[in-house]
């Protein structure tokens, strides 16, 4: 029953999102998001996850058509320090993120009230509200959609991996030997395409649930307008005296985890490494850009004022000289 309610409310949100997607294809700045257009967020209740990996399999299955099919041998890249990143022969890897695995299950064994307990939960791109991966992508290949999805366009991405570097969790994963760089200067610039969870944007466009949410036998995840999701997360956290991750991280994300144990404890217990993100607290990566943008409005005004000041004082001097001549 609960599932049906969440589905129905999702479809409502899904329709609004579909409208937003249509509007976001307008090639004009009018497409600036209206203050009322609400983003969709997901709620992940880690108490419910049994670590069955059904979500991981579903993700691989539905997104298979988007996976890279690299041509081999790869063009030689210069200088020699540039490394090939090839996952095409390891497509079955599911214990970390790869270009062929956009979600994986992280496990943490922690002490709860003196008893050892193991938690598992899916990890994938958080879909930040102000994503540095999209803001700082030099080509506009990574971008945020109005419905709160951040996705990387595989037709435009050159695989420079900047998005991965600037992402606080380093989510995007590179595959060499595919994409636009092959048609430009494959030996000297670019290195493939970056891949990560696109929150099943194509399914959402059709009003369908993301595959990982749809398949989950335990209803671990839920998707809906961000405001509602946040409210629900807080209600659960209050009820279980629990903790929230993702609401404030990196200035706010569209993936909200709720846990009965502090994320600090989970963070200490999970395996962290390449393709295995941490659960650290994260400050807003783009805060500097917001603050400096304000100064940018003042700068031209200051310039004009200085020019006017100079004009005024020159005119005054000239009048004095002319009066003196009389």
């Amino acid at each position, binding site marked *: 029953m609960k599932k049906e309610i969440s589905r129905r409310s999702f479809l409502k949100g899904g329709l609004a999102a579909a409208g937003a997607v249509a509007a*976001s*294809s*307008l*090639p*004009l*700045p009018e*497409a*600036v*998001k209206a*203050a009322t257009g609400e983003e969709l967020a997901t709620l992940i209740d880690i108490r419910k996850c049994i670590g069955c990996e059904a979500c991981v399999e579903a993700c691989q299955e539905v997104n298979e058509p988007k996976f890279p099919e690299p041509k081999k041998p790869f063009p030689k890249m210069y*200088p020699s*320090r*540039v490394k090939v990143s090839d996952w095409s022969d390891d497509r079955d890897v599911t214990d970390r993120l790869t270009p062929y695995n956009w979600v994986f299950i992280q496990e943490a064994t922690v002490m709860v009230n003196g008893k050892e307990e193991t938690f598992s939960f899916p990890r994938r791109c958080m879909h930040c*509200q*102000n994503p540095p991966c*999209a*803001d*700082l*992508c*030099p*080509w*506009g*290949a990574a*971008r*945020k*959609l*109005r419905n709160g999805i951040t996705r990387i*366009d595989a037709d*435009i991405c050159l695989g*420079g*991996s*900047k998005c991965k*570097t*600037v992402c606080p969790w380093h989510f995007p994963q590179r595959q060499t030997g595919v994409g636009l760089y092959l048609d430009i200067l494959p030996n000297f*610039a670019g290195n493939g395409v970056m891949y990560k969870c696109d929150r099943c944007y194509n399914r959402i466009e059709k009003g369908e649930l993301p595959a990982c949410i749809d398949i989950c036998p335990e209803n671990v995840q839920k998707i809906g307008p961000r405001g509602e999701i946040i409210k629900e997360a807080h209600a659960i956290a209050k009820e279980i005296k629990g903790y929230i991750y993702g609401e404030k991280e990196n*200035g*706010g994300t569209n993936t909200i985890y709720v846990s009965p144990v502090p994320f600090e404890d989970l963070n200490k217990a999970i395996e962290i490494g390449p393709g295995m993100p941490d659960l650290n607290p994260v400050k807003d*990566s*783009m805060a*500097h*850009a*917001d603050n*400096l*943008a304000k*100064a*940018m409005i003042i*700068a*031209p*005004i*200051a*310039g*004009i004022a*200085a*020019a*006017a000041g*100079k*004009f005024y004082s*020159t005119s005054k001097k*000239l009048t004095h000289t002319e009066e003196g001549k009389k």
Partner: protein
Amino acid sequence: MKAHSYALTAGKKWLKTFYILLFTLMAFTGFGQMPIFKRYYISDIPGMGWSADFYVTHYIHYIGAILLLGLLAYCIFDYFFTGRREFSLTVSAYVRILLLGGIVITGIFRVLKNLPDVVFSPEFTLFIDIAHLGFMMFYLLAALLFLIIKSGWVRELRN
């Protein structure tokens, strides 16, 4: 040479030097937005490690943009208030102004894009990102050409 009652600040040497230094910094930190400084050993040069940190180069690029916006506004208004009576712009100045305008306008949209509540369409995002770089490349080419043919920004008006 006639003594000017209204002197154009744009003609001053210190301002030219400042503009060139600022523009070089903007070009450098702008190119640094592409992941090339690490690949091509620039960040390996002692003291240049910061050039591979995208957040650092982005920060400097923003500071430079603030200075550049102030400077451009000053020069434009200084020209209209005082310089116009004694100088006129050269053709190469018009070309540079057009390209600068392109850089500034696309730059403003890039700044808007980075604000938390602003989302542009994918097509528009792609356009401003590529256009910002494109205008800059053309500006550098134009500046080089005008340096070779020694064409300045302003010409004195003869009375």
